[in-house]
């Protein structure tokens, strides 16, 4: 992959757009997934992923070949997503105004598994949405890309110690949110249990 990637980068630098498209095709999912997890909706993620690739195309001559291409690419994508989140905050766009979250599609999945996966995805989205952007980014890089602290530092442009502390706080924050959610759902469960026979009686 890395050898092919180098060839594509070299050819794209020489002006071969086909090679760049191949490169984009190979990295479409990682970039889209990062945008999707950061921004929380499919339409904006698609737009952000495409914009990331356009930026990569125009800045390809600045790519330092001693670095990992994927790290450089994810760095551009993550900065772009954080910029978008900042703009969204400045423009005060409510989450209700955004298009609905489209969960990843898995073909040939049993209906029960599909329901479980959908619930899990919904919980992840809710929790990620409540995290500040920088916490969200480290969580995404850690859990979806399995990056080391050094790689995360390279992608985000921070230090390893900053990443460690950010990840620690992000996990704690998420754990607290998850506990709160569980408590809330436990509170509602008996009420819903009582309401059911009344509805059935009608």
């Amino acid at each position: 992959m890395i050898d092919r990637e180098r060839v594509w980068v070299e050819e794209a630098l020489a002006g071969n757009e086909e090679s760049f498209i191949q490169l984009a095709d190979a990295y479409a999912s990682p970039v889209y997934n990062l945008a999707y997890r950061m921004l929380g909706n499919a339409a904006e993620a698609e737009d952000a992923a495409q914009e990331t690739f356009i930026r990569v195309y125009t800045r390809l001559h600045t790519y330092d070949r001693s670095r990992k291409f994927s790290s450089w690419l994810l760095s551009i994508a993550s900065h772009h997503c954080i910029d978008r989140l900042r703009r969204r905050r400045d423009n005060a766009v409510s989450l209700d105004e955004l298009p609905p979250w489209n969960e990843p599609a898995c073909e040939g999945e049993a209906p029960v598994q599909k329901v479980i996966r959908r619930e899990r995805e919904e919980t992840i989205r809710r929790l990620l949405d409540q995290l500040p952007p920088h916490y969200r980014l480290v969580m995404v890089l850690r859990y979806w890309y399995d990056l080391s602290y050094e790689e995360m530092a390279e992608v985000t442009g921070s230090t390893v110690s900053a990443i460690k502390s950010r990840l620690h706080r992000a996990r704690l924050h998420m754990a607290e949110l998850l506990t709160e959610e569980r408590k809330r759902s436990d509170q509602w469960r008996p009420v819903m249990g009582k309401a059911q026979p009344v509805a059935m009686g009608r």
Partner: protein
Amino acid sequence: MKCEIVQEQMMDGVTGTLGARRMAESYAHLRQCTSCRERWEALQRVESLLGHAQLCAPAPGFSVRLQKRLAHRRSTRWSPLAIFFIAFSTLLVTGLVFLPSNGIFQWVWYQAQDPRSLAWLQDVLDQLVITGRVMTHLAGTVMFMLFRHGWWLPILGYGLLAGLIIAAWMGLYSLTKVRRAVMHRA
């Protein structure tokens, strides 16, 4: 073992990077401490929730859409040379409009009327300051646009701008000299 130490070690414990001895010590503490146990369980829930997270792919045809967008961006993007010429001619026209209104012609006329007066020096300095201000504002705006298209364009632009200003002043200087000579002869 203190709660703070156990909570610090929890992250390593959750990710499975904590040593066996320390893990056993932490477990011993967790059996006794409810708040630490709750936190530990919450962290484990996060780990299990995100541990199964899937990478999601864009809708089919992503690269085709990207190719179209690239082509559209290329067609709508102005060439750096066109931007440079438009910016430079704007600068030139604005300069030509601004300079007379700032009194260059009046100054030349004044020189022709009374070449012996020393007041011309004050006028030259005034003109330099006014022209400099106008040119700096314009050049700043133009160069900001040009910097987005590579380093050579701003350098070329600044060179041409400096050349233009020098040429304009040399022209004015020689015009005044000629005028003075004519007046002297007369």
